[in-house]
């Protein structure tokens, strides 16, 4: 681990004083003290409620600002402050990926059997979530507990339409929310992660944390570790965390997914098909609120892209895909259907273009945005106000198509220069 992200001597001495614990909950936040205080209190309440009597600790990684509260060794669940060691003038910039590594480092030193990670931007966090996340580790010997939120599939359409089918086709486990911020890991996975080279994601955005979460997934798959999903209920984000533009989201999230594809080529090229992942808890979709979607606006955005970005798409996509997109753009809204096979090819072709550096990666992700809106518009035009169960069934078909088209990706990845009509 690089020097700059190691624990401070003060933290080391606190860890020595604590000795060992059974459970740890990590919270990472650079400067949102009010939100962080609430999350830490929820974590402590959750630990008391679900694991009474267990030795537990809350690990708060921050950028070195004022602590949320003084570490109290005598408290039933102490809060351990993990501040960056900041060499040089100005110190190291805040990085959530590095902060999560700090949490893992402390959890490993404390010999915690399970470590849960919480995102501070979640408004719907309840004490029960801590139990739901950590219980599969302690009671069912699971190594990675991914979140399963009760969300409408139209909410988080990048996850529904790209991340879920793509990561499932690549790595195998059918994780509905593969980059969820709330998760739990066993000591085995924590140890494996600490042996890995740290990522280089800087900045305090969610992307740094998502990079970390993606590495957890690939590590768990590569190590043949046990993965499950815990039903957490609805996930709502605090006000002020929803305003990121689509291009930025695609650039941040897909850059790290495509980047991980480059790093784990040998792993995903060997995997065929997918495997169901155990769902712990009850998935009751009856309370999910419908989400309004302006389908016309989505399709118009696609058509505008089709009119103007032909030249850019031509550098990424084969001629047959371009012809199909042209034909699609002429269809009326009600008949607009982007075939699953074409959508899978589009996503695969963009991942390949990222790999072969056809153009600036920011431009590449910007060029994908109208296509994604086209897919979302098509999905909405086809499914309309269908209930979440039917929408999930339709997403299952999409995922199977991604898996069926994986040989296309492998072939193009291996021989990118081969003629592709």
């Amino acid at each position: 681990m690089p020097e700059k992200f190691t624990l401070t001597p003060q933290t080391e001495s606190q860890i020595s004083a604590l000795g060992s614990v059974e459970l740890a909950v990590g919270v990472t936040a650079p400067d949102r003290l009010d939100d962080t205080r609430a999350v830490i209190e929820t974590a402590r309440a959750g630990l008391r409620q679900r694991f009474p009597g267990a030795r537990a600790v809350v690990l708060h990684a921050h950028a070195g600002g004022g602590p949320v509260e003084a570490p109290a060794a005598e408290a039933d669940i102490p809060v351990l402050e993990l501040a960056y060691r900041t060499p040089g003038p100005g110190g190291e910039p805040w990085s959530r990926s590095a902060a999560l590594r700090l949490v893992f480092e402390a959890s490993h030193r404390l010999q915690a059997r399970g470590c849960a990670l919480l995102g501070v931007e979640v408004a719907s966090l309840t004490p029960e979530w801590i139990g739901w996340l950590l219980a599969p580790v302690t009671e069912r010997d699971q190594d990675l507990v991914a979140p399963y939120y009760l969300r409408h599939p139209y909410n988080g359409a990048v996850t529904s339409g790209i991340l879920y089918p793509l990561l499932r086709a690549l790595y195998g486990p059918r994780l509905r929310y593969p980059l969820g911020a709330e998760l739990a890991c066993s000591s085995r996975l924590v140890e494996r992660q600490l042996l890995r080279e740290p990522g280089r994601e800087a900045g305090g955005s969610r992307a740094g944390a998502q990079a970390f979460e993606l590495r957890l997934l690939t590590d768990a798959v590569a190590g043949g570790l046990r993965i499950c999903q815990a039903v957490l209920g609805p996930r709502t984000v605090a006000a002020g965390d929803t305003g990121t533009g689509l291009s930025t989201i695609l650039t941040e999230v897909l850059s790290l997914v495509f980047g991980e594809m480059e790093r784990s080529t040998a792993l995903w090229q060997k995997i065929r098909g997918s495997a169901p992942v155990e769902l712990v808890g009850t998935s009751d979709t009856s309370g999910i609120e419908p989400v309004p979607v302006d389908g016309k606006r989505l399709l118009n955005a696609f058509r505008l892209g089709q009119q103007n970005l032909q030249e850019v798409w031509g550098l990424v996509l084969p001629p047959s895909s371009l012809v199909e997109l042209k034909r699609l753009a002429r269809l009326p809204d009600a008949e607009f259907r982007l075939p699953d096979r074409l959508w899978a090819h589009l996503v695969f072709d963009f991942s390949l273009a990222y790999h072969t550096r056809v153009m600036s990666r920011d431009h590449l992700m910007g060029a994908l945005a109208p296509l994604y809106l086209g897919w979302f518009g098509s999905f909405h035009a086809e499914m309309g106000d269908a209930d979440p169960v039917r929408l999930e069934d339709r997403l299952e078909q999409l995922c199977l198509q991604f898996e069926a088209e994986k040989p296309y990706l492998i072939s193009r990845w291996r021989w990118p220069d081969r003629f592709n009509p």
Partner: protein
Amino acid sequence: MWSQINDALRESLSRVLTSLASLVPGLVALLLSVILAVLLGVLARWVTVRILRAFGFDQRLERWGASALADWSPGHSPTLLVGRLVHWMLVLLGAMVGLVALDATLMTTMLDRLGSYLPNVFVAVILLIVGTVLARFLSRGVLIGAVNLQLQSARLMSAGAKWLVLLLTVAMALDHLSIGGTILKLAFGILFGGIVLALALAVGLGSTEVVSRTWERQADRPEQPAEHL
């Protein structure tokens, strides 16, 4: 008197014929040198193109991000461009050898002038290459950004950004070559100012769409907007 005129004419004719006769070997050498250079150039071009094609030069350049070069190449192939460069360099070399055979002092003078001018040409070429790549990068960025902002005038804005950078580059290159002088600067100032004004109008008019849409969105914002992630 007639005999004196006759003598003068004979002498001048003899001088002209003598100087012409002294030029003939040089001219023949120049002609032979150019023909030989052309033939060698054709051969060298053929060999170069074959080697570069075997190496997959065009595809590699595209992968390395130098696809802008293809637009300036004959048949959109940088391989052909390099082949032609090799060909014309050999023809130029042949012509220089021929010129030295014709008149050694002429060549020295030309080379002196060329030598002092070459750094300017080099800088101008570098400027043109950098400007072209930058113009393409910016125009693509503006196009994609404008499409994602759903501006109908995306293409116009992209073309404006591209030509602005290209014009600036050409003006800088010509300035380095000392071509045009003040007329060029004046013309460029007028043209550049005109384009900036036109762009300001275009962006201003285009932005009304953005502003009005933003206000509309604020007014009609649903209680639970769909999140993308």
